[in-house]
C-alpha cells in the first residue's frame, strides 16, 4: 500500500530540488562572474562554493516538507475517491476495527486511482525567470564594466594600433669567433657583445610592424644595412676592433648605443724554465746544455718556434759572434707549450771565454698574421782560464799587483822620519832611511823602464824580486791582501781619486809574460793610463823624455842620500823629482771636450755687484696635465647640477676629449656610449649619473692643493691672545 504511493513524495522532492537549482544556478553563475571581475579566480571559487552550498541547503530544506502529513493532505485534496480518509491507508490494518477497517478496504481498491495522481508542485516560473534575467544583467555588467585603469587602457595594451611606429620585438645575435681561437659560436639575446677580436657577429632582429629598412650604424664606420628574411632582419660582419653601434630604422625611436667589445688576442708570453738565472756558467766537464722555455698564449702557441743561438768568441774588444737559428718543436697542450733543445757545446763552437746566448722566438696561431714574440735570452758563459799554477793545485795564491811607494809618499815618509829622528836610535833611523831608499830605487826603476833603461840586478837585486804580476815570483808571495791598490796608480796622478779595484775599467793586463822592457804599449797599459791612442801618443815626445830623465836623475840623487841615511839631504832631490814627474804627467795629459751643461752667458754688468733685480727663478716644466682645463671636469661639474638652472654639459667638447684621450682612459667605449645616451635622452637622470660616475674614473687627480683653515671668531681670537 505504502509502496504503491511511495513514488509520489519522491517525485515531489525531485521537482523541488530541480526548481531550486533552476532558481539558484543562474544566481551562482552571475555571482561567480562578478567575483572574477572583482577579486579574480579565487573570488569566483569562494562565491561559487558559497552559492552552491546555499542552494543545496535550500533545496534540502524544501524537500523536508514532503512527509506523510503532506501526502495525506495532498491525497485528500486531490483524490476525491479517497473520501478524505487517506490517513487510514497508512494505518496498520490489525489496529483498525469495525468501520475503519471497512473503509480502509474500500480505499485500497481505489489506490490505483490515487497512485496515478501527479502531486508534484508546480515550477516556480516567475522566480526562475527573474533569477535568469537578473543573472544575465549582472554577467553582462561584469563583463562590460570598464577596468579601473581608465577607459580603453586594456584594449590599447592588447592590440597595438596598426599605424604605430615600429619597435624592436626581439633580437638574436650569433657570434662566431675566429676559427683559430677554437671557441664555439654562441648565441645571445643581449645586444651588447663581448667576443674575441675578429669574431663574426650576425644580427637577427624582429620589428613590429616591419619598417621599410633597418641599419646598424657604427659611429665613425660604415653602416651595416640589414636584409629582411621572412619575419627577421639580418646582417653580419666581422669586427677587429671594439666599437659602438645603434639600431636604426625609419620611424624607430632613437635607440641607445650598444657595445661591441672585441677582446684582442694577446701576444704569447715566453718564460725560461731552466736555467733559473739569466747567466749561468759552464760546469767542469759539461758537454751539453739544455735550456727549456715555456710559452703561453690565450688561444694557442704555434707548434714550432725558432731558437736563436749566438756564440761569442774572444775577449776584450776582440769579440766575434756567430749567429744561427734552429727550429724547435714544442710539446704540451696548445695554449702552453714547452720548447727545449739540447745543445752540444763543442759543436756550437763555444770556447773558453765565450758566451752561448739562446733566445726563443715564438708565434701564436692568430690568423691572418701570427704574433711573434722574442723571449728573454739566457747566457751560458765559459769563464776564462785561471792563471797557470802548475803543481800547486789548491794552493795557488792570487798574484798580487806590485806595491811601492809613490814619490809623494817617499817625501812624506822622509819628512816623518826626520821628525822622529830624535826619538830613534841611529841604527833604526839608518834602517828606515835605507828602506825609503829602496822604495826610491823601485820607483826610479819603474820610471826607468819607461825610458828604456836596463833593469838593475836582473831580478836578483834588492827590492826588485817583488811578486809583481808581470813577473810572478812564487817564492815570495806578499801577504798584504788585495787592499790598497791605489798605490799602483801613483804614476798617473797622486791626487787622482781613481779607485783601481780589481774589476775597474782599466785593464792592467795581469799574467803578462817575459820582460816588459821595450814593450812600451804593454807597460803603458800596465802602469799608466793609456788615455790616448797609439797614433797620437804623447808619451814619447822629446820634451817629456827630457823631463822624465831629469826626474830619474833627481830620484837617483834622492836614493843615494837616503841609502846613506842623509834624509835631510835627500828631500830636495825627492821634491824636485816629484815636480818633474808632475810636469811630465801634465805634458802627457789630454783634455777632452765633454758635453757640458749649456750655461747662460755671464752678465758681466751684473757680475760681483750683488744685484738680483729682474732675476726670477724659472718655472719648472709642468709634469701633470692640468685637469681643471679639461672638458671632462667641466662636464662632470655640469652633470652634477640638477634642476632647471643646471647648465647642459658640453657634450661635443667631451666627445672630442674622449677621442683624444682614448688610449689613457680606462673604458673609453663606455664613456662614449654614456655620452650618446645623455645626448639623446637629456631627461634621463640615471644616464647622467652613470656618465658622471664614468667621468670620475677618467678624471686625473690633481696635485693636492691647500685648503687653509678658517679664521677664528673674535672670542677665539681673544682666547688665543690670552694664551701664554
Amino acid at each position: 500500500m505504502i509502496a504503491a504511493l511511495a513514488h509520489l513524495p519522491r517525485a515531489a522532492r525531485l521537482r523541488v530540488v530541480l526548481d531550486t537549482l533552476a532558481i539558484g544556478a543562474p544566481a551562482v553563475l552571475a555571482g561567480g562572474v562578478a567575483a572574477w571581475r572583482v577579486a579574480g579566480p579565487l573570488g569566483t571559487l569562494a562565491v561559487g562554493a558559497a552559492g552552491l552550498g546555499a542552494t543545496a541547503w535550500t533545496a534540502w530544506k524544501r524537500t523536508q516538507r514532503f512527509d506523510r502529513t503532506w501526502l495525506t493532505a495532498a491525497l485528500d485534496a486531490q483524490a476525491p475517491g479517497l473520501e478524505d480518509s487517506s490517513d487510514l491507508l497508512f494505518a496498520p490494518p490489525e489496529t483498525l476495527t469495525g468501520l475503519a477497517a471497512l473503509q480502509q478496504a474500500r480505499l485500497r481498491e481505489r489506490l490505483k486511482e490515487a497512485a496515478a495522481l501527479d502531486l508534484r508542485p508546480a515550477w516556480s516560473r516567475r522566480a526562475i525567470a527573474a533569477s535568469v534575467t537578473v543573472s544575465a544583467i549582472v554577467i553582462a555588467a561584469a563583463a562590460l564594466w570598464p577596468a579601473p585603469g581608465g577607459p580603453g587602457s586594456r584594449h590599447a595594451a592588447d592590440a597595438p594600433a596598426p599605424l604605430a611606429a615600429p619597435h624592436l620585438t626581439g633580437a638574436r645575435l650569433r657570434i662566431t669567433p675566429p676559427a683559430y681561437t677554437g671557441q664555439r659560436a654562441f648565441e645571445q639575446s643581449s645586444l651588447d657583445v663581448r667576443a674575441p677580436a675578429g669574431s663574426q657577429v650576425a644580427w637577427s632582429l624582429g620589428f613590429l610592424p616591419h619598417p621599410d629598412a633597418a641599419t646598424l650604424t657604427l659611429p665613425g664606420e660604415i653602416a651595416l644595412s640589414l636584409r629582411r628574411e621572412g619575419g627577421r632582419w639580418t646582417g653580419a660582419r666581422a669586427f677587429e676592433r671594439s666599437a659602438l653601434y645603434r639600431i636604426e630604422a625609419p620611424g624607430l625611436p632613437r635607440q641607445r648605443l650598444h657595445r661591441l667589445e672585441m677582446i684582442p688576442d694577446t701576444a704569447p708570453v715566453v718564460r725560461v724554465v731552466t736555467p733559473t738565472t739569466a747567466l749561468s756558467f759552464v760546469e767542469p766537464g759539461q758537454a751539453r746544455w739544455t735550456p727549456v722555455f715555456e710559452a703561453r698564449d690565450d688561444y694557442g702557441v704555434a707548434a714550432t718556434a725558432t731558437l736563436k743561438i749566438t756564440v761569442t768568441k774572444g775577449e776584450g774588444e776582440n769579440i766575434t759572434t756567430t749567429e744561427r737559428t734552429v727550429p724547435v718543436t714544442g710539446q704540451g697542450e696548445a695554449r702552453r707549450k714547452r720548447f727545449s733543445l739540447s745543445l752540444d757545446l763543442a759543436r756550437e763552437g763555444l770556447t773558453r771565454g765565450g758566451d752561448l746566448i739562446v733566445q726563443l722566438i715564438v708565434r701564436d696561431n692568430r690568423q691572418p698574421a701570427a704574433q711573434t714574440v722574442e723571449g728573454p735570452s739566457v747566457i751560458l758563459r765559459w769563464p776564462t782560464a785561471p792563471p797557470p799554477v802548475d803543481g800547486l793545485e789548491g794552493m795557488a795564491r792570487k798574484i798580487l799587483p806590485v806595491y811601492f811607494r809613490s814619490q809623494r809618499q817617499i817625501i812624506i815618509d822622509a819628512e816623518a822620519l826626520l821628525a822622529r829622528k830624535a826619538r830613534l836610535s841611529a841604527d833604526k833611523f839608518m834602517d828606515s832611511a835605507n828602506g825609503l831608499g829602496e822604495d826610491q830605487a823601485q820607483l826610479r826603476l819603474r820610471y826607468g823602464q819607461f825610458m828604456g833603461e836596463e833593469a838593475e840586478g836582473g831580478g836578483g837585486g834588492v827590492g826588485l824580486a817583488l811578486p809583481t804580476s808581470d813577473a810572478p815570483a812564487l817564492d815570495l808571495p806578499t801577504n798584504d791582501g788585495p787592499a790598497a791598490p791605489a798605490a799602483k796608480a801613483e804614476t798617473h796622478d797622486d791626487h787622482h781619486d781613481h779607485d783601481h779595484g780589481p774589476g775597474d775599467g782599466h785593464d792592467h793586463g795581469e799574467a803578462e809574460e817575459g820582460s816588459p822592457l821595450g814593450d812600451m804599449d804593454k807597460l803603458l797599459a800596465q802602469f799608466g793610463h793609456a788615455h790616448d791612442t797609439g797614433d797620437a801618443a804623447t808619451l814619447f815626445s822629446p820634451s817629456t823624455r827630457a823631463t822624465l830623465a831629469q826626474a830619474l836623475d833627481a830620484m837617483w840623487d834622492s836614493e843615494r842620500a837616503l841609502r846613506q841615511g842623509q834624509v835631510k839631504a835627500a828631500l830636495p832631490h825627492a821634491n824636485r823629482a816629484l815636480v818633474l814627474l808632475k810636469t811630465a804627467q801634465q805634458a802627457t795629459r789630454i783634455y777632452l771636450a765633454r758635453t757640458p751643461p749649456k750655461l747662460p752667458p755671464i752678465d758681466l754688468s751684473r757680475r760681483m755687484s750683488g744685484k738680483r733685480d729682474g732675476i726670477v727663478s724659472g718655472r719648472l716644466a709642468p709634469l701633470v696635465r692640468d685637469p681643471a682645463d679639461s672638458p671632462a671636469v667641466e662636464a662632470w661639474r655640469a652633470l652634477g647640477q640638477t634642476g632647471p638652472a643646471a647648465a647642459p654639459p658640453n657634450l661635443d667638447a667631451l666627445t672630442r676629449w674622449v677621442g683624444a684621450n682614448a688610449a689613457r682612459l680606462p673604458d673609453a667605449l663606455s664613456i662614449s656610449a654614456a655620452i650618446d645616451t645623455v645626448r639623446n635622452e637629456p631627461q634621463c637622470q640615471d644616464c647622467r649619473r652613470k656618465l658622471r660616475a664614468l667621468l670620475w674614473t677618467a678624471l686625473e687627480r690633481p696635485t693636492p692643493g691647500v685648503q687653509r683653515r678658517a679664521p677664528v671668531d673674535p672670542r677665539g681670537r681673544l682666547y688665543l691672545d690670552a694664551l701664554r
Partner: protein
Amino acid sequence: MTGPSLLALAVIVGALVVSLTRLALRRRAAAAAERGPTWRFVALAGLQIAAGALLWLTLFPPQVLTAPGRLVVLTDGAAARLPAAGDVVVALPEATRAAGAIRVPDLATALRLYPEPGRLRIEGHGLSPRDRIPLDRTATFAPPAPPKGIIALALPAPVAPGARFTVGGEIGALQAGVVELLDPAGAVVDKAEVKAGARFSLSGAARAAGPVLFDLRLRDAAGRQVEHVEIPVEARAPISPRVLVLAGAPSAETKYLRRWAQDAGIALNLEVSLGGGVQLGDAPVALTRATLDAVDLMVIDDRRWEALSRPERAAIDGAVRGGMGLVLRPSGPLSDAVRRDWASLGLPTAETDSLRPVRLNGPNSDVNRYDILPTTSGGVQLVVTKDGQPLAAWRARGQGRVALWTVADSYALVLTGRADRHGELWSELVSAIARPGEAAGVQVEGLARAGQRVALCGAKERLAVIEPDGATRRPLVDPRATPGSCAAYWPASPGWRTVVDGDRRSALYVQPADAAPSLAQAQARAATQALVETAATGPARAARHAPGSPWPWALSLLAVLGMLWWLERRAPRR
C-alpha cells in the same frame, strides 16, 4: 559640583521624595488587612533610597586614591607592552608597535596631559629632536639593544681639489666587519677592518672642484652590507697661501717641495743660504715684520735657524703671533741652542736624534723621520700615519701656529712614484699651519636630514638656499643664536643644495630621512640619556585622586532595582 551633577541630584532627590510620599500615602490609604507587614514598607523605602543613591554614584562615581604610577613614553623601537598598574602608556609618533598605548603628537603634550604620574619612563631608542625638552619629573631610560651600524660619524671639511679628506667614525655593536669608502664610480678607495666599538678613519681624494658623494659602507664578517651612509665631500678651488722656505743648505727636500708647490699653484719663495752671504734660490726676502706679514707660512730648517739674527727672530715671532704659520724642519741632529729656541716656541724636542723609518700607507710609502717628537706635551698631533704615528705636532702661538715637522726625506716618496702621497703630506701640513684663509662659509653640525631642522650657522648676511629644483628659499638669520648667527632650515627632500651667504657659496647635502639609522638611534640615545640625567628630581608624589569606575555602582543599582521589583511584585498576603 558642576551644573549637570546638581541637576541630576535635584532630579534624583525629587523623584525619591515623590516615590516615598506615594509609598507612605498608599500605605495609609490601604486597609489594615492589605497593608502588609511593616518590614516590607521599611524595606521598600530603604531600597528606594538606596537605588537613588546608587544612581547618583553610577552617574558620578567618587574619586579613588591610586598608587603613584609612571608615565611610560614609547619611542622609536619600543616594544608594545601591557601597562603595569597605575601606569599611563603613551606612544610618540615614531613608535611603530604601540598597540594599546595612547597616541600623543609629542612629548610635551604627554607631559601636560598626564601631570599626575610622578615618574617618567622612556622606552625605545630615545627621543627625536622634536621631543628633546627639559623633563619635569624623575625619569628613567630603558633603551633596547644598541645599534650595530655606524654610531658616530665625522664628515670631512671642504678640501682643495686633489687633497686628501678623512672620514672618521665609530662602529656600534657589530662584532667584526669591514668599513669601506667608495668613490662616486663605485670603486673602493680605502677600507679598514673594524670590530664592535672601534673607531675608524678612512681617506679619499677629490679629483675636481665641486660637490661629490662618496659612499661609506659597513659590511659584516660574512660580507653582507650592514649599513651605508653617503659622504658628501665638497672640493673648493682654494686661495693658495704664500710660502717662504728658508734652508741652510740645498737639498732634495726643498727641491721637491718647490716642485709640489708649483704643481699645486702655491706661491713659494725658496731661499737657500750657503753661509758667508751666498744665497741660492729666489730673491731673498728681508725678514722684517712687514714682509713677514705678507707671508702665510714659513718653513725653516735648523741650520738656517741658527744663522738668524736676533731682530730676525723677533720679527718671525711677532709675525707668528700675528697669524703666520711657522714650520720647523730639522735637517740633522739639532744643536742645543736650536733645541732651546724651539722649546721656547712651545715645541720641546726629545733628546734622541735617530732617524726611524715609518710607513705611511701602503707600499712604496716609506719615509724616515727624526724621532724627536716628545711623547707628552708635544702639542697637537698632525699628519698621523695609518698606524697612529704623528709626523708633526703644532702649538698655537698667538694667532699663528708653530709646527715641528719630523720627516727627513719626504722627497723619497716622489722618487718611488708616490708624488701624490708627498703632496698629501705637505698639503695636510700647510693646510693646518698656514695663516687662516677666508671664513669657511655656512656650517652645519652633523648630518642634515630631510624633514628635520637644520641649523645653518656662521651666516654673515641674508642667507639663500637654492633647492634641487631650482627654487630659492631664504631662511631668517638669528644673529644672537650660538655658535654664531644661525638660521633654521627645513629641507623637504634629499639632495644637494647651494647655500648662498653674500658672495660665499657652499654646498649642503641633505640625506634621506632614513639615512644612517644607527647614527640617528645613537644620537637619540645619547641625547635622551643626557635629558634623563638632567631631569627635574622632586619628592615622590603621594597617592592621587582618580575618577573611579561607575561599573560597580551600576551593578549594585541593578541588584537593588531587582529587589525592589521583586518586593513590589510580591503581593502582600491576604
